[in-house]
């Protein structure tokens, strides 16, 4: 599973990364979590703001820090979360 955190690196972006990594760890799934800070690459996803989260190429959240349970539900839909 491939998860991308889109954002140049402000505290909200870092908090989003933390939430996502915690969710991945608690789900016990194998996932690559990558930060995307390049503005042009972020623009390529067509998002209105950051932070944004992309799971296996699908934009899941834009402009806010997602809740951990929401991240887990995304992982579950991708067949990756046990809890």
């Amino acid at each position, binding site marked *: 599973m491939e998860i991308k955190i889109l954002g140049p690196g402000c505290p909200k972006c870092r908090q989003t990364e933390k939430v996502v990594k915690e969710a991945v760890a608690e789900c016990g799934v194998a996932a690559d979590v990558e930060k995307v800070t390049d503005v042009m690459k972020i623009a390529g996803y067509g998002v209105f703001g*950051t932070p944004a989260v992309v799971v296996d190429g699908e934009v899941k959240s834009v402009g806010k820090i997602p809740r951990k349970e*929401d991240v887990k539900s995304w992982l579950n839909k991708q067949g990756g979360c046990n809890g």
Partner: protein
Amino acid sequence: MAETCCSGGNGVMILACSGCSNTGQLSNQAAVELTREGFGKMFCLAGIGGKLPGFVQSVKDAPIVVVIDGCPMGCAKAILEDIHVPLKHCLVITDEGIEKNKNLQLERSDIDRVKAAVKRIADKKEPSAAPETKGVSGCGCTEC
């Protein structure tokens, strides 16, 4: 497009029909000027109409979405309805007393009227276009 972290000021997403009439172009010009002035941020309605995933998710997660249609055809409104986004802040420019024509020539006074109307409807104290705002929205960071 996310040009900078937490950009967009007050979290207002502005969607203009940008149609091929004076009122359609008024919607576009008002959106451009409001963005430049820091009142919200214009976003690409074509991307939403094309159902590009990043655009669709962006409008669903936006705290406040203001839709500007030039005329009662309501093309912008129809695009949002098509992706099941509740509409809370909609403006139809012809309802402001500006007559639609095809000359594409914009009057300064009309642009200012539309901008004032957008600010008026955006300030309506209603829930956002997103049915529920999960997580934390708005910019609280100190580094942007």
